[in-house]
């Protein structure tokens, strides 16, 4: 009977190892050798962009926003204007955690830095998405902002009456809000990918 047990152990181990290598480690070693070549970006993130990226992770943006553009056969990502080319493994070499996402409750952000370069738009949108995008179901992030008086950095957000915290109050983005916007604006896929064809 013991031999049965050993057989089972090795069976369970073998199936595990096959998949561990097959769909985890082999892709890892294979893709790790993929590096941007020639003139191709992506550039590494700046300090500020990395701080913003941590805010992105902290607030769980990835649960509603993907960061990948698929080829035409897989969806209308490009017709929607989310990007001009499918994203490839080279685009993500600097990403940890990688934020590909699996849900599109909101639009894809792989190329948001090209599509929406306005700080003012991003800040208002983060303070309350319904200022810039009526009907949006994105959560507001008021804790990335402070009321004037509590905080001062010489920059206020010009909010419409209905969204202001109280009549006449000015809202000021915190460093975290600015970092997050810097990160979003760094998401650009407008460079060439070489070595693919």
């Amino acid at each position, binding site marked *: 009977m013991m031999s049965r047990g050993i057989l089972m152990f090795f069976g369970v181990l073998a199936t595990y190892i096959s998949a561990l290598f097959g769909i985890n480690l082999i892709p890892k070693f*294979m*893709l790790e*050798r*993929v590096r941007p070549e020639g003139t191709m970006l992506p550039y590494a993130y700046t300090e500020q962009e990395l701080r913003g990226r941590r805010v992105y992770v902290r607030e769980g943006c990835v649960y509603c926003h993907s960061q990948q553009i698929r*080829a*035409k*056969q*897989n969806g209308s990502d*490009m*017709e*929607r*204007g*989310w*990007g*001009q*080319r*499918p994203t*490839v*493994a080279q685009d993500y070499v600097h990403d940890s955690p990688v934020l590909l996402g699996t849900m599109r409750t909101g639009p894809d952000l792989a*190329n948001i830095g*090209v*599509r*929406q*370069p*306005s700080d*003012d*738009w991003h800040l*208002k949108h983060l303070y309350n998405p319904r*200022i*810039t*995008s*009526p009907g949006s179901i994105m959560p507001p992030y008021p804790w990335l902002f402070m009321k004037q008086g509590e905080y001062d950095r010489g920059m206020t957000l*010009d909010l*419409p009456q209905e969204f202001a915290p109280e009549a006449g109050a000015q809202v000021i983005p915190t460093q975290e809000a600015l970092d997050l916007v810097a990160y979003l604006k760094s998401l650009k896929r*407008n*460079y*060439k*990918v*070489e*070595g*693919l*064809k």
Partner: protein
Amino acid sequence: MTDPRHEKEQQKHRLNEPEGDEIDVTRMHLGLTREHGEPHEGYEPMPLWLPTLIVGLLVWAGYYIGRYGGTFDANSYDPVTIEEGAGSGNGASQGSPMDRGKNVFVSTCVSCHQTNGEGVPDQYPPLAGSSVVTGDSKKLVQIILHGLNGPLVIGGKRYDGSMPAWAGTLDDAQVADVSTYIRKSWGNKGDEVTPDQVKAIRAATSGRGQPWTAAELGLPH
């Protein structure tokens, strides 16, 4: 169908099910002690269709891996991806100016001006029915290239925001296409803008490092 064995089993299981709040000690113990022996396997043969299904699935798997396996390579994407040439930085160069312009519009303009060109009340001015859009194409192209800052009156409503510059993002053809698109959509009736026109305007304003104001362009503010 009154299989007596079946009846008995049902009865047994009714005992497992308490009724209301009454606790009858005997019943309670009945429920606890009466259960069937530990399960074991029977040795009925598999129904024949299952091995048939398995063979069918294996054949399918062979086909699927052959069809979609690609090469065992890091850069082996689904075929169409490569055909579309992940190589081109600014694709979408096919179709009519309106089609190409729409692609630029949904990519870079909708987040403020919205899909229907109506903008957002008090925030972003409408493009639909706007004289700035359908009027002098030179001013429109200048605004798209370098942005616009400060107060502006459109359709009797005052807006005070800032539009970013697109000169660094969009090439001449794209600016021309998107201008054409917004001048001819949502009931707007303007004429086409050509890449050459954009090229000339870009060259003429190339030194400009900051957005326009409505006053500079002679627009209502």
